Structure formats: C-alpha cells, structure tokens
C-alpha cells in the first residue's frame, strides 16, 4: 500500500460551499470517540487483508477538520497505523487543519507523533470573504497558525486558496496570493470554486440568488495565479497546485498517478488492485459496521482496463509533467499513442496536448481546458 487516507468527518461548522461528508463536532457527542475507535479497528482489519511487503510512503488526515479532535485521538490513530502497516521512515504524514482549531502545543504533539506536513485551509486573505464563506477564522488567525506550526518545527506547509468566490474581484485574488507569498509557504493549492447542488451556496446559485465570477474572470484568476507564483519560484506541478522545488505533495501524486491507496473512515475511498471502494457516508452506519466486524463499504466498483486507462490518463494529465509513456505501457501493456492515436492527433492539432519523446502532457492552453482533453479518452 503506497498511501493511506484517514477521513475525519467533523468540523466546527460547515462552510457554505462544502460538500464533503462532515458534521459539526458539537452535534456528535460521544460518537467522535466511538468513531476514532472504529477507524483504528478498520485499520487493523485492513492490515490483515493486505500484503505488507510494500512500505506506506504517505499518510494523510483529511476532513472535515481533523484538528477539531483532541490531538490524542489523531496521534492514537497514527500509532495504530504504525503498529499495523510498515510505514517508511521518510513517509510524508500530513494533517489538514484550520486556523482557530490548533495552537502551538497541538502542533508540537503532532510533530512528536511523526506528522511532518500541515495543510491549512486559508482560502483568502480578506476577512469579508472569509466571513461570507462561513469560515470561523480570519486572516490574522491564519498568520498566527502558520507561525505556531513553524515554531513547532513543522516547515512543510500547504495553503489552500480559493478563487472564483461570489463577489471576489481579481484584485482581491491577487492580494490573497501576494499575502500568501509573503509567508513563503512551500506549497500552495489554488482551487477554482465549484459549487455542488447540495450546499447552501449551490442551492442559492440554482435559485439565482447568488452570482459567481464567470468563466472569463475565473480564467483570468488562474492566469494571475500562475504568473505570480511562477515569478516567486514556485513550480506549477499540477493544474491547481504549486510548490517549491522538492515540496510537491507526495500523497496527492499517488492519486494523480492512479496508484493504490487505502482510505479509512466514513465516506473514504480506496483504490486497490482494480477495485475502488467507497465507505458509507454515515457516522452511525460506519461505526455500526465495524462494531460487528464488517468492512463499512458502501459502494464498490470493479474497474475494467478501458476505464482504468482512461482514469490513469485524465488523472495523470493533471500533472504538468504529464504521463510517462513507458510507465503506461509497462502498466497496461498498451502503447498510449497507438491506442488513442485519433484522439491524440486531434488534441495535438487543437493545441491542447503536447508529445515529447517520452511523455504526453497538457499544453498551457490545455491546462485551462483539461476536460476537453480528458473526455476524449473515456471508453
């Protein structure tokens, strides 16, 4: 198993755009302790299932906001993982956190337990925007959080930023980027806001009560991010991700290379062999299943070769370095360029794809129009 993802479905308060499975922590009572126990049990059950010759190279706590839990719960889960799977000495171990849920002591204890990377949901540097989004923190909290993490010795830090927010101007976006640059975090994820229907903002958008910046502004914002971040020595290594040299997220690269990973916790997804499993998105069902010693799987999908190749392509092309054609052939026994010759020719002609002697990747234009490329490879 290359990577393990642990889903912590709790937060202080749902943001207006969030469609992850997460519940406000003050509504769940004792279930959160039961949940952590269930996660540990799930880890043990999987440990018996899998061949342990391969080392785990990445562990990632995502949510929700994992840090709404007492730090001991997270470190407890981590210890159970160390005990169950062979974890590499230099494994990347990331915890997502939000300003306002952590302090110096919390970071110190994470660090002591082996955590070496922090991902902070900063989102924007304008308090007015943060408030509209339903965030509980303000920009000064973000700045304080980062200095506490550094004080605790956690240097590998990611910042999540969002563009295309309702009411956000291109100048505000550039300001958020510049404010972030001044903090010199080694990794920045810049996401365009995508509203799902089952969120407060998604519903408001459908009802015509909310306006978001249009496609042109959104494209300008991504252009601005690329220009500013490349100028500040960041590497643009994935459509939405930037990092100093040596700091790209190893965990996420497992996803983009469509390699195997195990997801534990409610609503978490795994990709093992040719199977993708998604756990039930329900706290009680999840806990209940594990109490009875069952895997809490909600959905399971067998991926045939055509589908797996398509997924490997659309995930792999998200990386700016693209797909290594030899690796693809080694994995599927198929030459990518031969198999998809019509698509590749058409997309190169349209200026969306580029071929190098060893790789295939999106062009600069293709980065903005990835879907036009991706869908061509679907079976």
């Amino acid at each position, binding site marked *: 198993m290359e990577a393990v993802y642990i889903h912590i479905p709790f937060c202080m308060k749902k943001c207006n755009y969030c469609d992850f499975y997460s519940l406000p922590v003050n509504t769940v009572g004792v279930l959160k302790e039961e949940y952590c126990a269930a996660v540990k049990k799930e880890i043990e059950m999987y440990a018996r299932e899998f061949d342990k010759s391969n080392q785990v190279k990445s562990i990632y706590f995502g949510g929700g906001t994992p840090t709404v839990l007492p730090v001991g719960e997270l470190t407890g889960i981590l210890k159970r993982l160390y005990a169950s799977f062979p974890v590499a000495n230099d494994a990347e171990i990331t915890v997502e956190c939000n300003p306002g849920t952590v302090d110096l002591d919390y970071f110190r204890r994470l660090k002591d337990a082996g955590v070496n990377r922090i991902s902070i949901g900063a989102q924007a540097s304008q308090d007015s925007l943060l408030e509209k989004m339903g965030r509980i923190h303000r920009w000064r909290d973000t700045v304080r959080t980062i200095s506490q993490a550094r004080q605790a010795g956690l240097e590998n830090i990611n910042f999540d930023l969002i563009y295309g927010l309702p009411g956000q101007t291109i100048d505000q976006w550039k300001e958020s980027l510049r404010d972030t640059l001044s903090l010199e975090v080694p990794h920045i994820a810049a*996401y365009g806001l*995508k509203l799902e229907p089952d969120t407060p903002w998604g519903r408001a958008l459908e009802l015509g009560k909310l306006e978001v910046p249009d496609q042109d502004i959104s494209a300008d914002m*991504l252009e601005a991010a690329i220009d500013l971040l490349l100028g500040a020595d960041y590497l643009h290594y994935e459509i939405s991700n930037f990092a100093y040299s040596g700091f790209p997220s190893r965990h996420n690269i497992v996803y983009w290379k469509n390699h195997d990973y195990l997801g534990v916790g409610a609503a*978490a997804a795994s*990709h093992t062999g040719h199977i993708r499993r998604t756990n039930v998105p329900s706290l009680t069902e999840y806990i209940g299943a594990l109490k009875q010693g069952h895997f809490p799987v909600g959905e399971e999908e067998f991926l045939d070769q055509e589908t797996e190749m398509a997924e490997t392509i659309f995930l792999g092309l998200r990386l700016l370095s693209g797909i290594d054609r030899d690796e693809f052939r080694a994995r599927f026994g198929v030459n990518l360029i031969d198999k998809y010759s019509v698509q590749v020719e058409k997309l190169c002609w349209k200026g969306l794809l580029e071929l190098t002697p060893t790789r295939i990747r999106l062009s600069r234009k293709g*980065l*903005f129009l990835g879907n*036009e490329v991706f*869908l*061509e490879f679907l079976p």
Partner: protein
Amino acid sequence: MARQDSTRNFCIIAHIDHGKSTLADRLLEYTGALSAREMEQQVLDKMDIERERGITIKLQAVRISYTAHNGKTYILNLIDTPGHVDFNYEVSRSLAACEGALLVVDATQGIEAQTLANAYLAIEHDLEIIPVINKIDLPSADPEGVKKQIEDILGIDADEAILASAKTGIGTEDILEAIVKKIPAPEGDPSARLKALIFDSHFDSYRGAIPYIRIVDGIMKKGINMQMMGTGKSFEVTEVGIFTPAPRSVDCLKPGDVGFIAASIKNVKDTQVGDTITDEDRPAEKPLPGYRKATSMVYCGLYPIETNDYPDLRDALEKLQLNDASLVYEPETSGALGFGFRCGFLGLLHMEIIKERLEREYGLDLLTTAPSVNYRATKTDNTEIYIDNPTKLPSSQEMIMVEEPYVKATIMVPSEFVGSVMEIATERRGSFINMEYITESRVMMIYDLPLSEIIYDFFDQLKSRTKGYASLDYDLSGYKESDLVKLDILVNNEVVDALSCIVHKDKAYYRGRALVEKLRRIIPRQLFEVPIQAAIGNKVIARETVKALRKNVLEKCYGGDITRKRKLLEKQKEGKKRMKQVGSVEIPQEAFMAVLKID
C-alpha cells in the same frame, strides 16, 4: 329484420378533452363489447403517444351489438375520428362513412372551435346530430348554458340533448337509445355496382395494407377483383371482416356495413383515405365524392444525429409510412447535416408525433430542422415551382414572384380577449374577415392568416394571451403573393443551410437579429471565437459572437472524487455527442429549432 335496417353508423365528434374517448369506452362496456377489465383504459386510442397526449391520431372502428328497449337487436358501428385540426380531412372521410354523429360538448367548457368545425362538417355531410352534454357530474357544469350555445351557435335543436357523464356512466343508455331511434338506417342497394368508401387503413405485416371500409352500394366478398377508383390499382380480395373490436372474418359486407378487407396490398399508398373501391369486373360509373390526396401542410428536414443511422432512418420512415399514407418524404442532402429526408406532414402535431415515433419505436436520435410551409415561386421563364425547403428559393433575379399558402382561421374566445386576438393576428400578418358574438360573452373571429405564421408557436401564444380560453381551427384557403426573402445564417463564416428560413421582408431584420442572439446563447463556447451572422443575399443584417472557451477543467480531483469526476466527464462527453459538428463548430440540436421559438 334485415341487417341493413338494424344497422346504425355513427361517430363521435368533440373538441379535445371533452370526453370523446371515455364516452366510447362507456358505450363498449355497456353493450358488453368489452368488459371493463379487458379495456386498457381507452381502447380506441391504441398508440402510446395517443394515450399520453389524450388525443386520437389513427382512426378506429368498432361494431357494437345493442338490444334496444323495443326488443330488437341492432348493429352499431362506431367510427372514431381524430381530434385535432391537423387531421381535418380524415375527420371528413369518417363522417362520410356515417349517418349520424354524437356531438359531445363539455358541460363546463361549452362549445369550442373544434366542436364548431366538426359540427359544421357533420352538417355538411347531412348527418343526424345528437347533442350530448358531457361531464354533468362536475360541480361547475352548466348544461342549460351549453344547450343554449348549441342552439344559438349551431342552430341545432338541443331540447333533447342528452345529459351525460362518460366518467360515471350517466346517460349511456339514453345515448344508445337515441342512436337507434334518431340515426337513420343506412341506405344503399345490394344489387347495385360495388361502391365502398375507404376511411382509414392500417398495415399488417402478414396481410399487407388493410383498408377500413364502409359499403355504400353492392356487396364486398372474398374472391372478387376489387379496384381502387382513385389510384386505378386492382387487387383480389382474400378476406372480409368486421371489428368486434378484435378483427373477425365474415362472408361478405353489404350496404351500410363497416369492416375491413385484406387483399395483399403491399403499399398503404394504394389505400388512400377517401378513395372508392369498386368491383373491377362490374365497376361503378363514378366514385364517391370528396376524395382528395392528403396534402402536406408542413415540411421539415429529418436528419440522424449519427450519420451512420441514415439507412435505419430510411427503413423506419418506410415502415411508418405503411401505416400513415399522409406522411411523405424524399431524400435530401444538407451541407451542414449530411444525408437526411425532407418530410411533409399534415400539421405540426403530426410532425411531432412522427418524430417521437421514430425516436421511440425505432430508437433513432434525430435532428429536426425548423418547419416550413410549401411556398410557390414563379420564375422569370413563367414556370412555377414549389418550395418545401428554404434553400431552394430562387434569388430575386430569378423569379417574378413568390406566394405563400394562407388559411382561414376561426378563433373562439371569451369577449374580454378580443383585443389580444386582434393583436396576435396583426403581428402574424393576419387580415380580419369577420367577427361574430355567438353568445353575449363568446366571440368567433375569423382571420385570413399566412400558414407559415400559424405553424410556429401561434397556438401557444394564442393560449397564453387568452389565459388558455382560445380555441382555434383552420382550413387552407389558397395562395397569395407575399414579399418574402430567404434569411441565411452563417456560423463561423459559412452558411448553415439547415438554419435558413423564408421570412416576410418586413420581419427579416427583426427575425435575423433575434435568431443570431438566440443562437449565441444556444451554441456553446468553442475552442475559438465563432461569429454568427444573419444575411439576406450578401447583405449581413445582424451579427453576434460566441466567445472562445477559456476554462473547462475539473477544479480538483483527489482519491474520493475520481468516480464522481469521471461521471461528470462522461456527462460532458454525452452532451457533445448530442451536438452536430458543422464545419469545425459543434452545434446543439435545439439550435436547428431555434427559429421556432422566436417572436
């Protein structure tokens, strides 16, 4: 009692939704022709589409046996009529096969335009009309008011109008008694030369085209050589039968009888509705009056979305035509859409039904071009040509004049909407002919209108501006010269022939403007900027631009998202498939119908 004396042939005429089919069911049920359980709701409306839309498209006939209060048993032949203005000619042919008609009027709605049109048709055919006021069980029923309307508007004595509720069965027996007592027995001489009227037909894959007939004179039996007097074709009769409602063979059909014949007729076109069948060896001198070939009122192009489906579309059209002689089609080629067919229909509803049947019953994905009427151009060499496709219109230098078909439209509305009707009629280039107060509060307005103005969304507009109260009926009235021009649409600097339309010169600028604006909204952004222009000849009269697509990319994609994101991509891909590639531009199907929804 002789069979002829105990036979009664009748039909039911009504405005749409006034309860015709339910009443027919009730009559069948009452007389035991079918048990309630046997009926799948409404027997007479056989096609799914008919049942969904609540209208009758294909005619049907049923024989009912009824023992009257006088103790005698009668054969009642119920001939159903389609309930839509598109099928007026078919209605007139089924009326011609009857001696009487039940005129069904909704007790809550009163007389509507189609009630009127059909009642007039029945009067023209000298039918005995029995007024039936239906839905009297509803609280808002006003039978006395409706009686007065029937007398004032139609001049039919409504004293003995039957109060009924087809839903609950009230009045069913009264109706059957009235049919027996009031409708005359059919006349006709069994020893005279054979004359049988074709009022419908259907196609049976084993026995070929089956004409539904009414015998006027003579005897139809197995073995005779029959001849179609309109088309001149002859066939040997292999079977004679009646509908009970299931088809059942009989020895012969005599004057007044309604039934079917089988004669290995390969093509439904040889059984034209309204044609007269006679005996080839002893032919009648002249055919029954009233026969005309079905005329197409509306034309459109039908194209498969997948070009590979062209042969399937051709086969499907062939098969549909077997059952529907009023559908005409011929192959055509469009620069934008490739190979397809120009099809002629009786009206817009007929067109929609055919398209729906092709898609549902034959699983085809079709693209329809905007409907057009049959224009007539006189060229400089004085030859006349008919134009059923806008691209065929000669340039103004090549022709002396162009004419368009007009209709006489009868519109009935409550008097407070007279102003709205006048407004719409004027917008649609109508000229006023007459207006009459048929009661204190209901007005009948007659307009001369270009057919092309009616086939678009005229009826929808009429309905919406009269709160749904208006009813409409129309009849082709002839051709009139008009100042018409061809409006071309250029997408990415190329004329898309399938988007061309013929419009009145005074409206060309407005329509061009509206059309390009509409297309700008419908055509999605492409990888490059796409200009959309409207032009008359070489003169561009309107222009819009679809900006280039700048961003279309999954924002994030992590472990938990992959299936969902893949499905999202699949959906985008599906959406693209439904589009038509014209040059290098992907145009959604609805663009080709855009011209319909403007005004």
